[in-house]
């Protein structure tokens, strides 16, 4: 065992990269749930984004076009969910699950000819001098676009929800759609926009996986990241800053277990491999024991169907 081989700086830097796909998907889902909609299709939107981003980047040779198409792909899939739940008033849980299955199947089918292909390399930030500062350089100034995009989005969402009129309307719709409707706000329109934003973020998260973290395309490559993103939203009790914390915690455990293995720690690796999921479950259990508190934080109209006639 040689724990000194693990560099804390590199550990932090790589956990930021590992956490980015989940962070992007989770911050999008947070906005969706804040508007009172429960979209369980995050996994499906992520994998759709992973594929459409990868395909677009390979075809055009530009990672930025890839990221853009990933966001569009994820948002496009979420429009199906939006139409079904907002106009046809279908059950959100069932529709979300169906969206996940549909996204996984569709991307697997379309992606068959993309397996094993090398995507264009997405550039990393490399500022002269600044990126070379010990500790701070590798952690803050040497990542790729998605890491900064995710952090910007978290800050943006936090600001939007807390300080803007639009954020207030979104929260009002999520707390009581009837009251918001009575005040003249377009509940359905707000929710559709929120759903599309969530889809775009999930798609971007998928592309962070297929274009940066791996970078490769394989069917089912999100491997449950969408579900973890959903859990993180609950874990964060619908607060953007805590979403960041949750995602980094998860990413940290995932990276740490590999580091411990490489350093020769003699803990059976099966335990290390399951630890990120185990911690997610434990955190969710701890969160839900205090029922009064967690219920206070959840948007009151979460998952409830809205119809203007009632």
């Amino acid at each position: 065992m040689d724990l000194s081989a693990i560099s804390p700086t590199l550990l932090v830097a790589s956990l930021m990269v590992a956490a980015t796909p989940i962070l992007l998907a989770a911050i999008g889902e947070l906005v969706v749930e804040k508007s009172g909609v429960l979209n369980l299709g995050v996994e499906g939107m992520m994998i759709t984004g992973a594929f459409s981003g990868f395909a677009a980047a390979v075809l055009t040779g530009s990672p930025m076009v890839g990221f853009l198409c990933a966001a569009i792909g994820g948002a496009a899939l979420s429009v199906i969910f939006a139409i079904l739940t907002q106009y046809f008033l279908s059950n959100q849980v069932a529709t979300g699950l169906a969206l996940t299955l549909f996204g996984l199947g569709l991307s697997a089918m379309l992606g068959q000819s993309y397996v094993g292909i090398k995507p264009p390399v997405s550039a990393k930030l490399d500022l002269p001098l600044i990126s070379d500062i010990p500790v701070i350089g590798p952690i803050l100034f040497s990542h790729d676009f998605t890491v900064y995009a995710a952090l910007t989005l978290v800050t943006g969402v936090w600001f939007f929800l807390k300080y803007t009129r639009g954020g207030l309307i979104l929260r009002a719709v999520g707390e009581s759609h009837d009251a918001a409707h009575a005040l003249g706000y377009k509940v359905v329109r707000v929710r559709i926009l929120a759903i599309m934003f969530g889809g775009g973020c999930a798609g971007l998260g998928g592309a962070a996986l297929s274009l940066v973290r791996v970078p490769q395309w394989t069917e089912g490559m999100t491997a449950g990241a969408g579900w973890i993103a959903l859990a993180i939203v609950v874990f964060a009790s619908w607060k953007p800053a805590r979403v960041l914390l949750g995602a980094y915690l998860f990413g940290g455990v995932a990276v740490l277990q590999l580091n411990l293995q490489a350093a020769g720690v003699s803990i059976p690796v099966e335990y290390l491999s399951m630890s990120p999921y185990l911690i997610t479950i434990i955190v969710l259990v701890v969160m839900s024991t205090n029922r009064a508190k967690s219920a206070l934080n959840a948007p009151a109209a979460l998952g409830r169907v809205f119809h203007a006639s009632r």
Partner: protein
Amino acid sequence: MKLKSILASAALAMTAATGTLAETTKVGFVYVGPVGDGGWTYEHDKGREAVVAAFGDKVETMYVESVPEGPDAERVMTDMALKGADLIFTTSFGYMDQTINVAAKFPNVKFEHATGYKQSDNVSIYSARFYEGRAVQGHIAGHMTKSNIVGYIGSFPIPEVIRGINAAYIHAKAVNPDVQFKIIWAYTWFDPTKEADAAKVLIEQGADVVLQHTDSTAPQAAAQSAGNVITFGQASDMAAYGPKPRVSSIIDNWGPYYIARTQAVMDGTWASTSTWDGIGAGMVGIGEITSAVPADVKASAEALRDSLADGSYHAFTGPLNKQDGSVWLKAGEIAADYAGPEGLAEMGFYLEGIDSEVPN
């Protein structure tokens, strides 16, 4: 119920009849990954294509990709046998017991299981001596590493993989006594995400050579973006990542074997055999050693390759001790293929000097 069974037997009789009329031999392949993995399964599928090219209309092949190593494999094999396959290749270690089980139910169907060690009347086993290629990789790795840390991504702790780690280690140590191996078990044959993460962690912990026994090209991509790291293609050439990070590779060449076995089924001469061929027989190829490797290292690596090929040198030649210090091979002694836990086929222990434990 009755009608159904009559129909079923009629259908069976008809497929049997058309089968004999057209005189096509049906060959099935069970793959552990997707054919586009660029590694292990890709090469098996090239073997299948070689069979099609060699026999044309006389042969009909079928394959199923990404079959999990578990009960589901048994279902896939049974399905192939029911569809009239005459010969079925099951191409991963984890299909061993399933192949034996299904073969017992279909005594007239011939089975060929890759990399395992259980044989029966209608189950042949075949494998390639990948460890010979690992010896060459270890030799290059030992010469090339500057940090003296070599990273190794293992799939599952099975004899084939452990053999590879040992072969690479002793040949790296022979040319560089300070070399150290860091090993991560990914517990998958094919999962680009896990493989990429494992490669990154190894590189972060100082490895400037990464060897992989998993099938995707993700570790190659991770090494490329990290910069000064070299890798080796696994199962397939992975030449797209040359001349650096990929400096050489182990290439599996199954085509000739698959053609020979299919021919044997057609001729009616098929018998249960155990085949274990290496560089010499052409089942293991060493991919081109690129310009990133200095000329003298390239020359000595090729000399090692040639001595393994002509049989003048065996990759496991004593004196070699096990990890706990006990003697495994005396000076000049050569490892036996089949000698229970002491033999190569069931090797489950590390050799002396590897600072890690085999997970159980």
